[in-house]
């Protein structure tokens, strides 16, 4: 999950890394007050979870508190990439001597965190890595002990930085590496890290991403930042349909029938499991089908859950039929899913034979499942019919 810049700055400050004086505002009045407190020229920055703020007009410079308020009013009303800003950050315009880059992320191949540092900050680090590879230092960190200051020092020194800047940046990068681990980040980045005219260093922008799986054990930090459980921070906000899918999945603890994502097609999908859903969604599209949704069933859900998911999909405006398809199941029971989806059709007053374009779930308890499907005249297929062929039949049957 991604943090807003104003949250990332709090995390950075909490770790003992100085940041430029700033404040978070949700109204022009607040922005004016913060600018007055800063008592110097400011930058007003839109707080959205997307890149390209500058280009979109979401970053503006103000010389007076009045100007800060006016810019804040404009930026608060400016949607960027479909994101409505959470607020604005009123930042002091510091006199920068040089911009640096400091970051920590995962190297999935080496299975270790990697510290990255460059004396060329303020721009995209991947670009610097391509144009000036000698100006980017990297070092992998141990998972079994805390990052040490000397490791940060080595990375910084490897880029040719020495003297006071080396001394000043070393604890900043080391602290960043330690907060990366402590808070289960997948990315902790300060860009730019600014060297001011007086020789001090401050974080002028920060970007933090935390791993979703770590949310349960990072409750204290999330509470401190005021991030509630309902804030998923996905690339886009959950739709009503998707929230209803979550409610279906949450009704009991038996298996999964959820992970619903809304699309705008006419073919409802009740599909699984993880890899099967990905394969089937691709196959439906390859045959010219237009899915109304993505979802996943797995881990042996109850009849009620399978029924709830099928009902939700069947009730979606524009959906005519559903295709019920999974890769061969081992622990999910075919008969239970069959019962669930048939029940959904019947309770909504539909004929299952009409509404279910195809049922292709082979595996555990398939004899029992196929018997039920036959009794209701639902077209079904066993494992001799591939996922791809099942998807083709589903599309042809809409």
């Amino acid at each position, binding site marked *: 999950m991604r943090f807003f810049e104003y949250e990332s700055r709090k995390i950075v400050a909490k770790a003992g890394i100085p940041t430029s004086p700033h404040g978070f505002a949700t109204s022009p009045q607040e922005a004016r007050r913060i600018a007055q407190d800063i008592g110097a020229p400011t930058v007003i920055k839109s707080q959205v979870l997307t890149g390209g703020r500058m280009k979109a007009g979401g970053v503006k410079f103000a010389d007076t508190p009045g100007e800060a308020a006016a810019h804040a009013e404009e930026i608060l009303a400016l949607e960027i990439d479909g994101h409505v800003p959470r607020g604005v950050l009123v930042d002091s315009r510091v006199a920068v001597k040089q911009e640096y880059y400091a970051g920590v992320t*995962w190297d*999935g*191949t080496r*299975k*270790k*965190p990697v510290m990255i540092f460059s004396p060329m900050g303020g721009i995209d680090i991947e670009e610097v890595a391509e144009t000036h590879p000698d100006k980017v230092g990297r070092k992998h960190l*141990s*998972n*079994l002990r805390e990052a040490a200051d000397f490791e940060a020092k080595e990375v910084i020194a490897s880029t040719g930085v020495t003297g006071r800047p080396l001394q000043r940046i070393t604890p900043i990068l080391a602290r960043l590496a330690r907060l990366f*681990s402590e808070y*289960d980040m*997948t*990315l902790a980045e300060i860009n730019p890290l600014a060297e001011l005219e007086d020789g001090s260093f401050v974080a002028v922008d920060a970007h933090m991403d935390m*791993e*979703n*799986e*770590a949310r*349960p*054990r990072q409750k204290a930090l999330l509470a401190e930042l005021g991030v509630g459980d309902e804030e998923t921070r*996905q*690339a*886009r906000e959950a739709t009503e349909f998707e929230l209803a899918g979550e409610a279906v999945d949450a009704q009991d603890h038996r298996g999964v029938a959820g*992970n619903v*994502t809304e699309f705008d097609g006419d073919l409802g999908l009740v599909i*699984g*499991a*993880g*890899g*099967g*859903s*990905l*394969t089937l*969604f*691709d*196959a439906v*599209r390859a045959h010219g089908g237009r899915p109304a949704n*993505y979802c*996943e069933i*797995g881990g042996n859900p109850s009849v009620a859950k399978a029924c709830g998911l099928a009902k939700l999909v069947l009730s979606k405006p524009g959906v005519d039929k559903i295709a019920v398809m*999974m*890769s*061969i*199941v*081992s*622990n999910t029971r075919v008969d239970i899913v069959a019962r669930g989806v048939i029940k959904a059709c019947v309770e909504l007053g539909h004929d299952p034979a009409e509404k279910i374009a195809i049922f292709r779930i082979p*595996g*555990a308890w398939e004899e029992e499942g196929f018997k039920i499907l036959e009794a209701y005249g639902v077209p079904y297929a066993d*494992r*001799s019919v*591939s*996922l*791809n*062929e099942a998807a083709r039949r589903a599309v042809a049957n809409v």
Partner: protein
Amino acid sequence: MSILIDASTTFIVQGITGREAVNLTRECLDYGAGAKVVGGVTPGRLGRDVHGVPVFDTVAQAVEAHGAPIDGSVVTVPPAFTKDAVLEAIANGIKLVVIVTERIPRRDVAQMVEFADAHGARIIGPNCLGIIVPDVIKMGGIGGPAKNAAQAYTPGLVGVISRSGGMTTEMSSTLSAAGLGQSTAVSIGGDAIIGSTYAELMPLFEADAQTEAIVIYTEPGGRMEAQLAAWTLENDSRLPIVAFMAGRFMDEMPGMSFGHAGTIVEGKEDTATEKIARLAAAGITVAERIEDIPDLVKQGIAERKGAAV
């Protein structure tokens, strides 16, 4: 032959008294020659038994009762306790740990892997269904109940490696139906960081005389496929590889994760399109559809044999 496990492999199940673990134990005992499940561990449940398997409070007790080192462990405990369970297994001399649990934060996985490396142990998973050697042994829930596993998996010459547990079975079943059995099938797990990647398992298959070809299931997210492509180019492997890439639609939806936690695309190298190009450039055949895989495997084997003559 096989990789990782064979008929003589002994293992324990950590978290054995959980509902899914009880089923998994039954399945492993029933399948093939019957797995040597020599114990189970659930703290506080010493003295119970699960399908005749004795339950202990600690791994050390299980090892002591067995009277000899134990080869492996299947770990199926809640995410918050998984790291400790895995460290306990490795600290007690276990060399192969299959982690079933999902939703474990990356930091914990990375710590377990580094600890395993330092102790000469190997981790499969997390978020996986384990390993199966058709008709011989299975370690984990892979393939489900013995009857169902026997229906999908047959002995043969294809090594299967998959980021999806269910798709391991789907692909193996497709191979079996076409007369191509499997030497060993490994569900490696769907997370961003896992104990054993494709490239890390390839040397084992390379050394296994029974294996003549490799089939892999891949997804967007992560650099595992790039690592395999690099391995293939650096090592003059005797094994043809056929890959299937699911989740191509995700390329249009950056920042979203579908299917498994590891599918989150964090850089442009992680997309399906980019991965397909990399695999193909390394001489790996990328199948458009699963039903095409058996013929591509047969072609691959025939070409290698032709080249060797």
